[in-house]
């Protein structure tokens, strides 16, 4: 097994950061002066610099554009036949029926017989961190050295030249959540990116999007660490591991809150030592980071929800969630989304009860449903994955419409990863993340003709100039041509 051969990092203590914590003897006055005149250097207090790897994303050049005459799925429950979508300066400015005003000078695209949807959002991707080619030297998705690696950030593992980004864009994917893998109880921070070609991951980072925290239930953590004769090696070991970490995080948060409160009042205060692991976990407790929890079984979901109550945080979404259909009532009550596939199941014990109608049944019971990929191929046709899940429901008379199912790959993932105020639906004011499909996007024959990100054309099926290729593929067989 790969993880067995991963050389264990020696348990070297972190190089001790010498903090200015020595007691002074100058009385309260002097201490006050100390605290107010000597703020910590930026890297020692997360609150001073919460965004140390800031986004440098700039939308690609765009022109005012109107798509006219296409059938529009807004992902707000509407289907508009033969409508109009207008984008200017990167934003959607109008979505309406035939006759909706088109600004003078706008590029007008004839959408007759075609369909328009919001850009597809893949809420569970490992593009860049497990890129293709899938070689050991680029296998950067799991820091399998400790069951709690909340200190690692997936963005630092992203290889921007992963050809998978280009393939996904050709499938209409405009936004992705890039997660660490599921080997650990706490896998690390997940990053939200805009799917544009970029030299750096900073150039892809979705401005203003919150971070996610990847957690994993079940078989993976206990298998990986159990096989190293470490904890966790059982389900109960998993749960003890989560709780211990949240206790530490709560304590850490308390110390920093106390320090900041005192420092704000100008009182003498000794700053706690910064800890990247606990920074991330306390970020969850502050409601700034969204929990994205790999969890297949209904009973495990119930445990995770109890832990969230015990420590005062909220699980944004259970990923994979093969048994979402069994847990629907609980998920609705707690307001937790599920992200699942159409019919990938049965590959291990915790996915044994996965059924094609999972998404459809959960949706009909009121659950916020997301269709995700966790895969560099499925991400290219999430529209069809959603279609298969929709058909499984319609096979048993659940009467799920296109207007319902489009939200599974647009508005709902946007909500679950925390960017619904910016993208995920076709509404005035939202980002111009838009896909023009050659036909009903739920058809097996559907292809994305044009993909817009922040109003800019980023992919065109008929124009080689808008079919970007990865550096890696130049000079190789196929040259990055995939269709």
């Amino acid at each position: 097994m790969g993880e067995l051969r991963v050389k264990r990092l020696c348990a070297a203590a972190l190089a001790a950061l010498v903090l200015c914590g020595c007691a002074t003897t100058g009385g309260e006055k002097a201490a006050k002066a100390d605290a107010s005149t000597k703020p910590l250097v930026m890297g020692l207090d997360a609150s001073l610099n919460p965004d140390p790897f800031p986004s440098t994303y700039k939308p690609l050049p765009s022109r005012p554009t109107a798509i006219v005459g296409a059938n529009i799925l807004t992902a707000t429950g509407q289907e508009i036949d033969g409508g109009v979508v207008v984008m200017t300066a990167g934003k959607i400015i109008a979505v309406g029926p035939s006759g909706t005003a088109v600004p003078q000078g706008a590029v007008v695209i004839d959408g007759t017989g075609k369909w328009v949807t919001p850009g597809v959002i893949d809420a569970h991707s490992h593009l860049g961190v497990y890129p293709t080619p899938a070689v050991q030297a680029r296998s950067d998705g799991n820091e399998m050295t400790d069951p709690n690696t909340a200190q690692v950030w997936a963005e630092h593992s992203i290889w921007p030249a992963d050809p998978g980004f280009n393939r996904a864009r050709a499938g209409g994917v405009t936004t992705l959540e890039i997660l660490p893998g599921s080997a650990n109880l706490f896998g690390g921070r997940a990053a939200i990116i805009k799917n544009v070609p970029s030299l750096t991951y900073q150039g892809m980072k979705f401005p203003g999007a919150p971070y996610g925290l990847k957690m994993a239930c079940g078989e993976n953590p206990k298998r990986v660490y159990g096989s190293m004769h470490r904890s966790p090696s059982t389900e109960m070991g998993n749960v003890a591991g989560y709780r211990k970490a949240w206790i530490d995080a709560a304590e850490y948060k308390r110390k920093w809150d106390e320090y900041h409160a005192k420092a704000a009042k100008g009182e003498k205060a000794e700053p706690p030592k910064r800890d990247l692991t606990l920074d991330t976990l306390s970020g969850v407790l502050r409601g700034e980071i969204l929990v994205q929890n790999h969890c297949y079984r209904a009973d495990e979901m119930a445990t995770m929800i109890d832990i969230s109550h015990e420590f005062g945080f909220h699980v944004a979404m259970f990923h994979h969630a093969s048994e979402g259909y069994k847990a629907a009532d609980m998920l609705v009550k707690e307001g937790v989304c599920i992200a699942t596939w159409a019919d990938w199941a049965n590959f291990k014990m915790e996915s044994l009860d996965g059924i094609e109608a999972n998404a459809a049944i959960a949706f009909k019971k009121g659950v916020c449903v997301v269709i995700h990929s966790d895969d560099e191929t499925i991400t290219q046709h999430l529209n069809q994955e959603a279609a298969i899940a929709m058909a499984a429901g319609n096979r048993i008379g659940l009467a799920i419409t296109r207007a319902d199912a489009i939200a599974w790959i647009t508005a709902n993932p946007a909500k679950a990863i925390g960017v619904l105020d910016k993208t995920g639906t076709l509404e005035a004011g939202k980002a111009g993340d838009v896909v023009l499909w050659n036909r009903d996007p739920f058809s097996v024959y559907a292809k994305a003709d044009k993909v817009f990100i922040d109003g800019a054309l980023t992919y065109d099926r008929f124009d080689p100039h808008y079919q970007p290729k990865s550096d890696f593929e130049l000079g190789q067989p196929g040259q990055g041509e995939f269709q």
Partner: protein
Amino acid sequence: MSRAFATLLLAASTLVLSASAETVAITHGKIETVSAAGTIEDGTLVLKDGKITAVGAHVAIPANARIIDAKGSVVTPGIFAVSSDLSVMEVEGVRNTHEESSKLGAAFDVQYGVNPASTLIPLVRQGGVTRAMVTPVAPHGREGDQDENAGEEYTAGDTNDGVNASSLFAGLAAGLRLNVGVAEPVFAPKAAMVADLGDDGARVAGSHGAALQLLKSALDDARFYAKRRSAYENGQSRSFALAREEMEALQPVLNGKIPLLVRVHSAGDIRQLLKLAKEEHIKLVLEGAEEAWLVGDALAASKTPVIIDTEADLPQQFETLGARLDNAARLQKAGVLVAITGNHSTAMLRQARFNAGTAVANGLAYEDALAAITANPARIWGLSEHLGSLAPGKDADVVIWNGDPLETSTWPLAVFIAGAEQPDTSRAFQLRDRYLHADDGLPPAYH
């Protein structure tokens, strides 16, 4: 045997027998014959004694026939899963449910490991699949197969690197019929020998080129052995790299009775393999073949069929840098016999029909795509006399669909295998229906 059990068995066998003996006329179907007869827009199909006895626009309906009015629904041959793990890998992550052998190599005959009770057979049948070729996988050839719990979505980080692999050969394939209640589902044993080249072959031989040389050496050994069996038995022969039973198992490949199914990916490996096959006078079937479009003419000239996953468009490894979505369309145009698979693993076997649809979206003609999941698998495995199309005399494997069978929005309305209508059930459907059940205060376990 308990009396109740005996009665059940009797009931089951009666059910199957009577169903097989049933005469059925499917009327007003849009019949996709996948034969020279093409599409019959409003046709009738007659099934009798397990065979198709008539198909056409104007067909006399036997007096005793049960008539099913298809009302314009699409009628196709049953889907033939051209290469699969069906019934030999119940749960990928549970090693004890895998049928494979590092010890037997070429001599491993998968027919002995087939599990007729697999819960996946009914599941797959409900996707319109009526036959499956079970093609064994060498223990080194399955992704993430290093321990009993490693059947993982790949993001758990499993890799194959450094796995000790012992043989290029995975063993002998077997054809399955997917009828309900059949204790012996194997209908085509020893249908092919399976071998790995490329990265998987390199895990045995050391590199791609070394794997080709090792394959050639194995075939030479087997040929040499067959000419001097008595010398071998008397201990008067040179030693061989392969065991006696492996060399015996390879004889049908050497004498052209069965094809060698080779999992191979790069254009370079494919070219070398075609040369080797010509020298050795063996028949090949290629699986994977992501770069086959670069070698289309040579594949057509040598009449070498290929089995491809039409979604493969990424440079997953250095051996598939040229993967393209139009591989199927380009191969068809070059004159190559193409079959389309879903994911090899059972969990996604039902997706072969959608992958055929994907091929259409990428340039393959509709009728060619339909053939790639029905008639072409039958041809590849030498079974087209009985299977793969709707024509008089063929086995009555028939599916009635509520629309285009390649579409995401459709499902089978009825599935017949050898003339017997199959029940609309599976473990997954039972789970589904249990949790759909209205809450009456009792746990779902009571439903």
